[in-house]
């Protein structure tokens, strides 16, 4: 199979407007992934499925990932004049990265038996603008998995035929797989409470519960 760089340049040839970005992967698995902007995601995915050299007809896995807002610090060495003498000074730049939700698609080809090509779709933020295009019309296998991500992460998939909660019940409000999810305070008796369970138990029963 082609490398992801080659695929990326071919996509850029086919879709001049698409904004693509390769996410390198430092782990031993060597599986880099491709971020596609939401506007061209559907067309790019269709192209990946139908391209005769790739034929990624099998969408194996769809996972949601929650990235909280984070600050990344990068240290760069800059030459500066300090007291009239040129010196190398470390400059720390802080860049705030807004939080977003991500849907990761692992695509394989059953007919050509290669893969994976990993596609990442990102929402603009974690609150209101939480839409990405649904790829269920292309791969039916994404249907339940996208529903699960909608349920547990709260990504809205535009164009999904049946976007309902799947694992949690219908009246449930929050999205439990988000990193900042707070468990509801429904305490049950626990015979060996410790750590946060002990705190919870003490809050509910006064000081009766001791270590």
């Amino acid at each position: 199979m082609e490398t992801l760089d080659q695929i990326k340049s071919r996509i850029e040839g086919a879709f001049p407007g698409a904004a693509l970005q390769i996410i390198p992967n430092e782990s031993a698995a060597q599986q880099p992934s491709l971020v596609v902007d939401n506007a061209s995601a559907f067309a790019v995915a269709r192209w990946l499925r139908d391209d005769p050299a790739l034929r990624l007809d099998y969408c194996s896995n769809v996972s949601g990932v929650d990235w909280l807002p984070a600050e990344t610090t990068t240290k760069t060495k800059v030459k500066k004049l300090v007291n009239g003498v040129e010196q190398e000074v470390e400059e720390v730049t802080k860049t705030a990265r807004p939080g977003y939700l991500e849907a990761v698609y692992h695509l394989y080809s059953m007919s050509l038996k290669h893969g994976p090509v990993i596609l990442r779709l990102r929402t603009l933020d974690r609150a209101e603008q939480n839409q990405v295009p649904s790829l269920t019309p292309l791969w039916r296998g994404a249907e339940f998995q996208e529903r699960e991500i909608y349920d547990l992460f709260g990504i809205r998939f535009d164009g999904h035929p049946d976007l309902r909660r799947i694992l949690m019940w219908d009246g449930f409000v929050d999205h439990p797989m988000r990193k900042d999810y707070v468990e509801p305070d429904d305490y049950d008796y626990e015979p060996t409470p410790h750590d946060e369970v002990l705190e919870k138990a003490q809050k509910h029963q006064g000081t009766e519960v001791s270590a």
Partner: protein
Amino acid sequence: MLGEGIIKGMAETARNFFGSYHDADRMTTVQFPEDRIPAKENARNFPFLVFDGEDPAKGLRCVACQICEKECPPKCIYIVKDTVKKPDYIGKLQFQPRVFDIDVSVCMSCQICVEVCPFEAIKMDTDYEFGTADRFGGLLLNKQRLAKPNTYYRKIHATEAAEVDERLAAEKAKAEAKAKADAEAKARAAATAAAAKATPTPVVSPTAPAIAPAPAK
């Protein structure tokens, strides 16, 4: 022929039914409380704490390091460290658990605690008869109920226990030899110091400064 499959199937059933009277292979069940299948050597059910010697209070191998408490997947172990240190099996001063509880209604018998324990202190039991009318207290095993002697461990997991005993004995021998060497070195140092005091002009003997080499492990 219609019904042929049923006849064939019934023939097999009959063969198994009558065979169960004389052929041990066809009798696959045992009458449980009276007859029991012997426990496999690797069988595991719930953890217990091993102690050496006769007295569980003295010989408990657990040093309350709390690694198992942190690693336990369902978090069913609860440990409180004691405030005073007691010598462990190699004579090193260690903490002991003041409280060591395992909630066996939560425990899922995964053996992670046994694997992460650096002191061979917690092992898996094969006992499974824990039925009790007391839902919470009866299934919350405390230190006294968990402590079982090493002889019991050797009985239920013979091969594994033999390996553990061998390793511990080697460690103990090493520690004892080291302690002995340390004591000897200390005594010799004291002797030379005393000798130095006695004679105003110290004579350097060919053997001093004597530092006893550690014996081979």
